[in-house]
């Protein structure tokens, strides 16, 4: 009876921690995608810096659930906005910027590893649509262009 109860308890806590780690990882990718379109159109290096800053300052690998996460596939964002272009679809919607990353959850260095002895792979993907006005931002005056 006792081993069954212990298995259920550890299993449940493991599932909860995995859910938390996955949510935090998804949030980090979401915010990185949002941050990548904050710099004005065409500032590729600034976009790259901002998305990396947001990702690394959201995923806390020293935290309670983040401590089990190891990034295996580095954050990568792509989209025409990041290359200085802002095409729109037939419906007038800007083509999105897409960010993705991958990680592994490893409980082997904790008591949960007694049951969860394998590594769990997770991945996250986020899409954001840049505002059209950013493509018309006047960099010399810092104001939006007149329509």
């Amino acid at each position, binding site marked *: 009876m006792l081993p069954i*109860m212990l298995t259920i308890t550890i299993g*449940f*806590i493991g599932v909860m921690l995995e859910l938390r780690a996955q949510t935090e990882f998804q949030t980090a990718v979401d915010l990185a995608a949002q941050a990548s379109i*904050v710099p004005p159109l065409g500032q590729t290096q600034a976009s790259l810096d901002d998305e990396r800053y947001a990702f690394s*300052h959201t995923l806390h690998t020293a935290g*309670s659930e983040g401590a089990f996460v190891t990034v295996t596939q580095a954050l990568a964002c792509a989209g025409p906005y990041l290359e200085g272009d802002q095409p729109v679809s037939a419906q007038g919607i800007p083509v999105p910027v897409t960010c993705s990353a991958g990680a592994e959850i490893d409980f082997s260095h904790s008591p949960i590893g007694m049951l969860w002895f394998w590594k769990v792979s997770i991945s996250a993907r986020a899409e954001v649509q840049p505002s059209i006005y950013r493509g018309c931002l006047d960099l010399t005056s*810092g104001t939006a262009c007149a329509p």
Partner: protein
Amino acid sequence: MVGRFGAALLMVGGRLRTVAASAETAGRGRVPPQPRSPGATGSRARSLGRQGAQGTVEFALVFGLFLVMLFAIVDAWIWTIESNAADAAVEQGIGVALAAPPGSPTSTQGDVAGVYQSTLPLLRQPMFGTSVDPWKPPLGWPAGTCPDSDYVADHQGVGHVDVCAAEDGAGHVTVAVSGYAYSFIPPGISAFTFRSWGLPIEESASVNAGVYAGP
């Protein structure tokens, strides 16, 4: 569910059959009654009493362990809900902070004040009795930083979570939710990692929000 119920019925049925069989055996008189001395009867009664006491102690131990594990499961579940809510609040807060303040679309500053209006109502509902308040930095607190969960618990106790939005002056906005939410962890266990009756809630994110409108 049906399987467990069926197994329980089988167990009860099996015991009933055993009792019935022994009663039948006794009734038929296959085992001739032996004369017993008063001393032997007393010894058997004492043995039965010891067995009953042993059963009670075993039940208390198993039931105690069952309760500990049940509370661990409930705690983990509630903590997950609360941490996910904190995560969502931080994400929403960063979204608000990335936008320019109302009335100044070309501002180089993020809308830090708007973070509280946006996240506090979102966070108060799913915290299960833990209070949520905006962070009020004390005099001399370093700009652009937010407190960790231990600092909040040291100054405001367990069962309190602060929402913090801070800008460091270089365009970086940090939004954090930190503190200790109520839990079932008793003082004895809390010596290891956690505080008595509390589990840490600590979610934060930081983005660069100051470059978008600048030349």
